[in-house]
């Protein structure tokens, strides 16, 4: 390779690696701010990496799985409250894991159901209760026909966020 090309190659390669390193460091420094939501266990014991805890009265997003059997609907309004547990695969719930209660007054998305991934936006109040102003559904990356989902459920006792019907 002739020296001029070699020089250009070196310059461009070093510029790219420089930009990549800068971007990497910036993203690493901002990582907890880029996270869209807190998980229920992080509300209890602080962020995984930094241990930063959410303050009471802080606006935050909470993401988790709707604990089966925890949904309570008001009889004559849209008010609803439910508990969220950490998202994990495969889906499982235990009684002693940390949960956060979400209170919401409004229309829930179509995908809302027990065992579904949910992201709620609201203010944290005492006792790990969140007054949500917005509830969004998070679905997973698995797609399958209904028959397959039903047979998978019979075999393995569920898979995917929609397992706990």
């Amino acid at each position, binding site marked *: 390779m002739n020296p001029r*090309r070699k020089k*250009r*190659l070196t310059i*461009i390669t070093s*510029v*790219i690696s420089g*930009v*990549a390193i800068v*971007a990497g460091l910036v*993203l690493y420094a901002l*990582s907890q701010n*880029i*996270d*869209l*939501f807190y*998980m229920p266990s992080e509300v209890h014991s602080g962020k995984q990496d930094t241990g930063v805890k959410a303050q009471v009265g802080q606006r935050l997003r909470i*993401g988790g799985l709707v604990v089966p059997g925890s949904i309570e609907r008001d009889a004559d309004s849209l008010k609803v409250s439910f508990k969220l547990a950490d998202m994990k695969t495969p889906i499982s719930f235990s009684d002693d894991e940390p949960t956060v209660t979400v209170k919401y007054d409004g229309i*829930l*998305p*179509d*995908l809302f159901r027990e065992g579904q991934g949910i*992201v709620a936006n609201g203010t944290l109040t005492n006792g790990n209760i969140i007054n949500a102003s*917005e*509830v*969004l*559904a*998070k*679905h*997973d*990356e*698995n*797609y*399958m*026909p*209904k*028959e*397959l*989902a*039903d047979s998978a459920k019979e075999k393995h006792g569920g898979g*995917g*966020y*929609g397992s706990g019907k």
Partner: protein
Amino acid sequence: MWKWLHPYANPETSYQLAGRLQPWFTGLSAVLLLIGLVWALAFAPADYQQGDSFRIFYIHVPAAILSMGLYTSMAIIAFTGLVWQLKLADASTAALAPIGAVFTAIALFTGAAWGKPMWGTWWIWDARLTSELILLFLYLGVIALHNAFEDKALAGKAAGILAIVGVVNVPIIHYSVEWWNTLHQGATVTKFGRPAMAPEMYWPFLLCLFGFAFMTAAIVCMRFRTEVLARNAMRPWVRALALQASESQEAK
């Protein structure tokens, strides 16, 4: 390999190669898209959770994959163009950028239309959506720089530098759903092992993906040819071509 590639540094040879390839790409994409889209939209089974709404997947995901793939190719071409000073590289990046921008816009738009019924919102500033929006701005920047200078070579150099620097964003888009928690779900297509998608849903997706890819290739050939002609308008071979075309027009 260099010996085999060398003739294509000549604009005329590449122009003719693109012209020969274009009908094949067009034909393949027409066949694949026809079968793929009919299969995907009418015959593939509905999703167990999302029902028929999930079918927008067949447009959304190919558009998103191509938006990132086109950017990466554009950056690689710009890189070779800057290091080896290939004139044709400028024509190629100028040909690629608007196509990539359109695919990015399609991915963002179909994503919004999908997000509203499923998530409950058109837009959320999560890492995946934001980084894809930045990709759109990068494309627009490359297009703008190509048109910002009178001197085409200077414009190509400036646009090439932006294209190369911006490639840092591509892995960020891809891994955003793994590095941070986002509302956007993880990758379906590149997930190996566990069945992320049932085969009878995956096959029509593959047809659609390759259909859109060949459609892109055909449009790239078309745009590349016009770019080459515009940049070589004063060359004898382009003049001969124009003369030939106008004569055959008169003969009709």
